[in-house]
């Protein structure tokens, strides 16, 4: 029922907008605004999330065809295709030509070349390279967060974001809280002054951590790191970036700005085995904003500890708790509660794609890349504050020379970080690690 009306909506609006398109759009964009045409979509990065995103794209629009898939690992593509086919069963034919399955570090180019719309869902270290290629070749993009693992990558993404803007390409970023009704509703209420001016907040991603992929005897060091990517900064960027970006991004969104400086502490207390690479297992960062707001940000990956994933902000007249979906008065009384439970509300992972494809069909433009890049940078700023133990300003991080991801990787490349004789990786040390 819901799906039916969505599709009708897409069709109807597409027809209405056709007339105005020819006169208002530059030629290049017009070539890629297709109200009725079958849209070709490619997937770059065929893990669980990328495969999920392809399914959501296909659910969003009837007239899409998956034309190509790319990954560094052939087994990931195989599993992805099985999963997508199983999901649709007989309801929708998924037919990807064998010659359009590309494997390797440069596979993204061939897959992107064949498409109108591309999903970029590799680990974040590769995003700047892939996004740049996608916008240079004029493709609409859905890409997962975060958008880079270092400031060099963020600057590259910002440049590409501008190119996308100039070409009127749609870019949706998987910071799905921006597409979640509860957040949108509370954002409007806070923005219209329901709890006064925001002065402080707390954001959390505390839980037991994620998977480990253990080393196999036949793997090179590079393949091992690519399989167990969560624990290597050049690919992942640490969990303060990879997961906690969601909550830091909500702080930026609700405050309406990016942090002026950050200071904090963190370390590697419990999750510190050889299989855990070199990232920290906890960070506690204080972000100070240009308007004077202070946000405490905590993220922890330690089993058996108190878990909480949430955002809370205090204003001059009350507070908002996003998890519960509540506004409270200064006395702590609930003054508003978002009425729909999350399991009955629209699925934000689906809404991202509904909006993206509706926008493409209508000839509109969504461009999440600027905010995605800046929230990525804010989380990296937090990471560098805990790694160095120093105060890091927005200007410093924006000009940081850190460049973690090697150019022109192939399977003979040496990864940028190597284990010592005992198989351990050098981890950052506050007070010793230098800001670059």
């Amino acid at each position, binding site marked *: 029922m819901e799906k039916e009306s969505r599709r009708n909506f897409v069709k109807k609006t597409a027809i209405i907008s056709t007339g105005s398109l020819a006169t208002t759009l530059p030629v290049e964009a017009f070539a890629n605004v297709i109200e009725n045409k079958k849209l070709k979509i490619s997937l770059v990065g065929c893990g*669980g*999330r990328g495969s999920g995103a*392809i399914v959501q794209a296909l659910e969003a629009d009837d007239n899409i065809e998956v034309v190509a898939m790319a990954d560094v690992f052939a087994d990931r593509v195989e599993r992805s295709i099985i999963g997508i086919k199983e*999901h649709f069963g007989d309801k929708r034919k998924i037919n990807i030509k064998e010659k359009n399955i590309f494997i390797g570090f440069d596979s993204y180019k061939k897959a992107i070349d064949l498409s109108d719309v591309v999903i970029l869902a590799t680990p974040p270290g590769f995003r700047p390279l892939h996004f740049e290629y996608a916008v240079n070749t004029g493709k609409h993009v859905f890409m997962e967060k975060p958008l880079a693992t270092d400031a060099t990558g963020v600057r590259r993404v910002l440049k590409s974001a501008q190119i996308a803007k100039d070409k009127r390409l749609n870019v949706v970023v998987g910071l799905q809280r921006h597409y979640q009704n509860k957040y949108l509703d509370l954002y409007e209420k806070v923005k219209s002054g329901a709890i006064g001016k925001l002065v402080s907040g707390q954001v959390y991603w505390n839980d*037991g951590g994620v998977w480990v*992929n253990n080393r196999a005897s036949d793997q090179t060091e590079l393949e091992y790191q690519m399989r167990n990517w969560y624990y290597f900064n050049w690919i992942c960027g640490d969990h303060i970036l990879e*997961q906690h970006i969601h909550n830091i991004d909500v702080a930026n969104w609700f405050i309406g700005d990016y942090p002026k400086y950050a200071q904090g502490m963190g370390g590697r207390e419990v999750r510190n085995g050889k299989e855990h690479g070199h990232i920290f297992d906890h960070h506690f960062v204080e972000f100070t904003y240009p308007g004077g707001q202070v946000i405490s940000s905590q993220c922890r990956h330690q089993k058996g500890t108190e878990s909480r994933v949430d955002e809370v902000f205090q204003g001059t007249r009350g507070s908002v708790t996003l998890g519960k979906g509540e506004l409270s008065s200064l006395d702590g009384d609930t003054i508003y509660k978002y009425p729909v439970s999350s*399991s009955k509300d629209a*699925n934000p*992972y689906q809404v991202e794609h509904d909006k993206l494809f509706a926008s493409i069909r209508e000839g509109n433009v969504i461009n999440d890349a600027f905010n995605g890049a800046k929230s990525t940078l804010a989380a990296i700023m937090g990471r560098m504050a805990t790694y160095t133990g120093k105060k890091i300003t927005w200007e410093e991080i924006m000009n940081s020379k850190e460049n973690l991801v090697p150019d022109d990787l192939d399977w003979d490349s040496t990864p940028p970080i190597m284990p010592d004789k005992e198989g351990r990786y050098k981890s950052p040390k506050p007070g010793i690690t230098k800001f670059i």
Partner: protein
Amino acid sequence: MNMFINLFLFPIFLTLQDLSNKKNNFTQIITEDDLSIEMVFIPEGKFRMGKDTLNSYDYSPSNDVEVSSFWISKFEITWDIYQLFMDQTNFDEKSDFSRADFIDKIDGLSGPTTPYVDMSFGMGKNNFPAVNMTHFAASKFCEWLSSKTGFYYRLPTEAEWEYACSDEMDNLKIDDFAWNRYNSDEKYQKVGQKKPNIYGLHDMLGNVAEWTADIYNKDVYSKKRKKNPFESGENKYPRVIRGGSWDDESSNLKSYYRSFSTKELQRRDPQIPKSLWWNTDAPHIGFRIVRPFNKESQKLKKMFWNYSD
């Protein structure tokens, strides 16, 4: 690793097993960490399963059904115990292999993958009921516990569940016995705070709804089943869910009320394939466990433990 646990722990439990073969309540100690599961003996008997109504609800027509003796856990399984299952079966490379046909290739027992978010959804863990596990995961918990303790555990059948709940519950003041939509503060609560039923079982109705072993079949009551009925099957859903939850109207909190799983329980799982182990939209579904008094065949055990062959 599980082999190790077996060899190591089995002798300790031999003595306990002797005790627990008697028709008494017993306490299943499960680890060195002071965790235990209280098991209540339910004597065999006959009861009226379902409820007759003029409308064609799935719980009518009612039948006289005979159930053999079993023990059932006094409380819903808590996160404390479920976490141990997660930790002790966690060989993480299988997180890439979250599909049933890969599972059989792994030596020994498999257990839940590490979820991307805290699956308690911030509703609490210490002594709170575990939720959001799939039916498959709950079945595998029973297999893990069996392997760990040397006793055979499984999910209750729908008939065992209804028998142990008892229809006396249906006429009592529900707020005294069950956390429901109107008294739960919109979340599950610590187990065992409400009054127990006639067998001494807590939270049979309300708090979290509970997985049973059966495949859901709307018309199954018209089959006039007589003894230990059980609808087996391999499909992920629909599986029967009983008891209603903190999120239910009190009218759904009845001994005979039947609910069932659908793929909507994984609606917000952003990955493909969807997790074999975790539901993203079931913060109201947990489970409790049963140990049958009579021996069950290896074939039946594997069926209960969700093997696909």
